[in-house]
């Protein structure tokens, strides 16, 4: 009897160790990736890297200014379309989402979150690039917006649902119409959370490559024209990683470090903005 209890407790302790070991093993690649990014990327980053455009293959020097600016512009375009629709959909789900339409929209949003981004990319190509006859940053922004909407809809809904009902009731009791209650009281209270959701969505689309391959295409020159091909950091990393030059690989690592830095800052800001909300967990 005693030995059986001992054995059970030993097994429990062993499994705790196994589970902890597995968790450690799962986190290991992240630490390795960060270490490699810093190790291989940091040495190539100087002031010129941020303010110069790429130089022709074979020459050294130059930077990725065009890609950094391009990433910013394309993400901004995506936000322009994605944030209103995404947040609006989220508000709908939280305010009127009880019925069958709410169920459908919620379900479609979750399913679309898992849709391969390359599929969205070739759809955007069919709609925006082929009729226009040329690749454009706008088409890239539209593809990213499609990816952004379902993410944003679900986070907005969650955040709006966290607002206590008593706030809503108080506003309605004071004679506020429902739409003003929803916008000025409920959405206003949840604003921090909605912004967090937007930051997380931006962090995610800023690193997307596949939907941009056939829309924004990439551009070795500095361009801010949204109707023309535009470079992004992700596209530049892809092209340079597959290229034959040692110099390109060096730039790819540095660009990856910059991109990862951007994603990290966005994620940390989002985390910081909601720290009180998750502190209880």
């Amino acid at each position: 009897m005693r030995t059986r209890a001992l054995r059970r407790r030993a097994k429990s302790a062993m499994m705790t160790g196994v589970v902890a070991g597995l968790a450690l093993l799962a986190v290991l690649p992240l630490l390795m990736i960060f270490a490699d990014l810093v190790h291989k990327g940091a040495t190539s980053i100087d002031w010129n890297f941020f303010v110069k455009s790429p130089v022709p293959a074979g020459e050294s020097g130059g930077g990725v200014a065009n890609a950094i600016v391009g990433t910013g512009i394309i993400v901004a375009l995506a936000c322009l379309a994605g944030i209103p629709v995404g947040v609006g959909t989220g508000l709908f789900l939280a305010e009127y989402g009880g019925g069958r339409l709410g169920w459908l929209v919620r379900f479609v949003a979750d399913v679309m979150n898992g849709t391969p981004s390359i599929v969205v990319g070739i759809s955007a190509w069919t709609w925006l690039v082929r009729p226009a006859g040329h690749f454009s940053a706008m088409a890239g922004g539209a593809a990213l917006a499609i990816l952004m909407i379902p993410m944003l809809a679900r986070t907005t809904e969650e955040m709006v649902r966290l607002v206590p009902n008593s706030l809503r009731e108080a506003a309605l009791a004071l004679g506020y119409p429902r739409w003003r209650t929803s916008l000025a009281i409920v959405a206003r209270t949840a604003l921090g959370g909605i912004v967090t959701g937007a930051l997380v969505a931006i962090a995610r689309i800023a690193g997307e490559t596949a939907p941009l391959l056939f829309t924004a295409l990439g551009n070795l020159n500095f361009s801010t024209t949204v109707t023309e091909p535009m470079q992004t950091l992700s596209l530049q990393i892809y092209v340079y990683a597959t290229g034959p030059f040692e110099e390109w690989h060096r730039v790819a690592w540095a660009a990856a470090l910059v991109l990862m830095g951007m994603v990290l800052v966005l994620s940390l800001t989002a985390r910081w903005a909601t720290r009180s909300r998750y502190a209880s967990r």
Partner: protein
Amino acid sequence: MRRHTRNLGDPAYRWILTGLAVLLPLLLLAVGSQLAISAAPALKKFGLGFLFKTTWDPVAEVYGAAPMIFGTIVSSLLALIIAVPLALGVAIFLTEFAPRWLRQPVGFLVELLAAVPSVVYGLWGVFVLIPLLRTIAVPPLRAALGWTPFFKGVFYGNSMLAGGVILAIMIVPYIAAVSREVLQAVPATQREAALGLGATRWEAVWSAVLPYGRAGIIGAIMLGFGRALGETMAVTLVIGNRHDLGASLLAPAYTMAAAIANEFSEATTQMYLSALFAVGLVLFIITITINALARLLVWRVARGAAVGSKAL
């Protein structure tokens, strides 16, 4: 007057929000039907053979997608085999065993892993993972399992194995985050009842917590599978991109997403383009189906919750 504006404002607000919300299902429908329309010429010409034929020859205009369908499924299954134990380890550790102070940092690290862009994983895969596999993983694998067809032949570096491993690293955080939320949704009474009956901590987890969350965990694994199937950039960079269908994990392979990424801009003829859209359509249908099933399973445990939204 005030009454009047209120009566107008509320329905208007509702209709505007409804209009925005309806866009999402319409968008899904639009993507699906566009793919179907663009894929129609190829599907008409090759019929069901498109899925089972192994020749992909743009010069002769003969297209069979079997190698990439095979490659997509095998690389994703390989990723699941590696990722599931790790991800469940993280989820169980974080909800059941980890000291409180450790839960947040580790949880955050795992979420961060989900935020690393796919192309960065690919870059790392090409320059770090593949050399690592070559020196550390493949020699012992070949020594132990070289007699099986799965580890025969030359290791090219870019291979099914590299694709599976990079996919595994990418889907671990996703499966972990969703299963963690599923496990958190298991009522504490479930745990307490088992402990109250004299179960050890592990027994409580194994016999009371995991069975309760089973549907949700299966859903989480399927979500990870769906991700892996549609993942593009990282796989394109490491899998070798060859239209081959073979058992050896050490040989180059192809996936549907990688084929679209590589060949779409080279597709000069209508039929070539249509064949690539057909590949996209197959990928779309497979991932949509798997995601839909997974969501329903996860919802059964964590009802209606936007599970995994933090891992996006």
